[in-house]
């Protein structure tokens, strides 16, 4: 009987441990969720002279994202994939299975989302927005 209790106790402990491990460390209402437009790039004070960079991001609750980008000229390109936020670090994978070029430290403040690349340390400041429907419908899917 004692042995059984011990086993039960052990099981309970293990289960408790397991459940502790499984329970997502609730990020505080993930601040990244929503639609964003790149507002400023602080690339060590260097600007992309003459090149227009227009980036829209949409992070959904289900862990998927949509990225609409126009870098330089041309039609918006659409990328999709999944994201995770852990310990204040945002990382993700494109639908192709390739990881993002960098993960980002997240800092949110009201209508602003700042993503600081862990590679190189550049800050990308995004403002809350609604992605124009025209961009969504005409973007070229990558």
């Amino acid at each position: 009987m004692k042995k059984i209790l011990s086993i039960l106790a052990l099981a309970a402990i293990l289960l408790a441990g397991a459940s502790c491990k499984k329970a997502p460390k609730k990020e505080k209402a993930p601040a990244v969720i929503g639609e964003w437009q790149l507002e400023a790039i602080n690339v060590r004070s260097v600007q992309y002279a003459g090149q227009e960079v227009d980036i829209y991001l949409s992070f959904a609750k289900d862990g998927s994202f949509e990225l609409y980008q126009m870098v330089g000229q041309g039609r918006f390109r659409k990328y999709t994939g999944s994201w995770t936020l852990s310990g204040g670090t945002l990382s993700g994978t494109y639908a192709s299975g390739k990881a993002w070029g960098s993960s980002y430290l997240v800092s949110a403040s009201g209508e602003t989302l700042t993503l600081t690349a862990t590679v190189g340390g550049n800050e990308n400041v995004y403002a809350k927005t609604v992605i124009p429907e025209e961009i969504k419908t005409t973007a070229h899917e990558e």
Partner: protein
Amino acid sequence: MRKITIYLASALAVCLACTRIVENDIPGQDGELAPALATKFVNTDKAAAPGSFLVKFASAPETGEILALQGVKAVERVFPPFPGNEELEHQYGLDLWYSVEMEEGADLKELAVAAASLDCVGKVEYNTVAQKPESDVKPVPVQNAPATKASYVDEFAQFNDPQFSNQWHYINIGDKAISKTVYKGGDISVKDAWRLATCGDPAVIVAVVDEGVKYSHPDLAANMWVNSGEIPDNGIDDDGNGYIDDVYGYNFVDNGAITWTRKNDDGHGTHTAGTIAAVNNNRIGVVGVAGGSGKGDGVRIMSCQIFSGDYGGSVEQCARAFQYAANMGASLVSCSFGYPAGVFRSDGAYKANGGAEYSALRYFMGKRNNAAVAGGIVIFSAGNDAQPYAGYPGALADVISVSALGPDYLPTYYTNYGPGCKISAPGGEVGEPVSAAGYSNRAMVLSTYPSELDVNGGEYAYMQGTSMACPHVTGVAALGISYALKLGKSYTTEEFNSMIVGSAKDIDARINKFGTKTLVYNTGHVYKTMQMYEYYHKMGTGCIDAWSLMMKIEGTPCSQVAIGSRTWVDLSPYFGSASTSLTYTGLEMSAEDRAAIGLEGEPELNYGRLYLKATKIGSAKIKISAVGGGSAVGTDSTIGGMAISREISIITRDYTAFGGGWL
């Protein structure tokens, strides 16, 4: 021997049966003339038209000196002066070309030599007349009946034209009823261009230099260019452009109204016009590449008739047609004719013999007729001689010549290929058995046709040849100009030509260079076996890709480059999928741009990639030059490809993601 070929291959016929033959040996070779005099002759008098010849004055025209020659009846400008264009005409020497009309009984050669002896005369050109052999192309007319295939599979839902689904050359769904060897996707990738970019613009005028276009054809009439300055059939040159009653264009052969029903006309001009701009979404017939969306927004066709029954194709007629197209607003000329491959073997040889025709071509290329491109775009067929080089004038380095593909997305048995061929497009090929009943005509190209030429009154016909491939590229180029106008973009002629030639889908991956392509009769007997290695890397840059051109016009995004290590940029967005096999000729980057990204070492080009190492975050532009079609650009001593160049914009970042995503 000088020949002018109308590039439409009859079904399994010997290609040269389609030639229009004009004798023209190299002048002076017979030793009859003193060298100084012989150099003034552009061509010889073989097969020359009686009664007239052309002269180009060395400087200011001295018509009085010509008129003073015994036997001269009149001297008139080859190119009628066009108000407002005098400066450009002078720049290209059009004001120096005169036609000398002779009195009856005068000796052509004697008079031409007498004219050449005058100091004021710089060149003499016999005004040759083309002759059309009895045997000619055999179009296969069809009625305007519902399409034979369940037409309204999704792929063809965009337009309601009932014969659309038979136009595999626009959307090739791999229908084996067309050909057993049909290749899905072997088309011009125009569907998305229509859906997301443009279907045309009536401000874009395309001159079809060919047989007369049936301007009253129900599937063409709404897209015909109309000269608003001319009152039809009043016998007066109302707009003062030098041509009477030129409402839809002009007949340069008969000097009058456009015709398409003379003996031995074969509907060639009406067919090529339909590929460019048959009216779309009008519930009848076929679709044209730039035929609009059904809202009156197709490009406009101008008929410049240089063939009429058994006549036409002379130097003077072609030359005047190009000048007319330029003066009356055409942005492109579509020319499904030319000299057979091998008549000229270098740009220099053609230019020396091109005379008035070459001057007029240069004039067209130098004339801006829209806000998007600084000059005219010239597109020719590569020729049906099955020879490893293109025919001239299409082979000229600054002209686009088009080779032909079958529904199998492979070179056709008749097409020219190799140096001088800049790009390919569907031309059709009936030489494949598809059923016990025989060949499928549907493996050719379907377009508009004059009903008067068919005993059953068919208004559409299947034809094949590089003649049919050429208007596909013209149509796509016309779509490109339409889209550039819509977006407010502007290019030099060289830039726009580079974008066209760089907008191609790969063919070489489809060509098994160690294999063969066999064409067999329906009896099972082999008609022809083609060795594919002969065509590998020789069909220009590949198959024209309409969507790719639209994307280039929208603008190619910056390539992102990570700093700190040597990395590469894929050049296919700039030069098409042939970028891996192109011959690159130059790379330019300013010192300022090098500094802006902290370039370390020299950038290099290899196998379609630009290799470089940047050490600073910033942006830069790099101009890359290449050869479009062939391994070297055509020169005065060689036949070759087109010099093309693109500007690559890069931004450098701490990191990049695979596929170019920002994150």
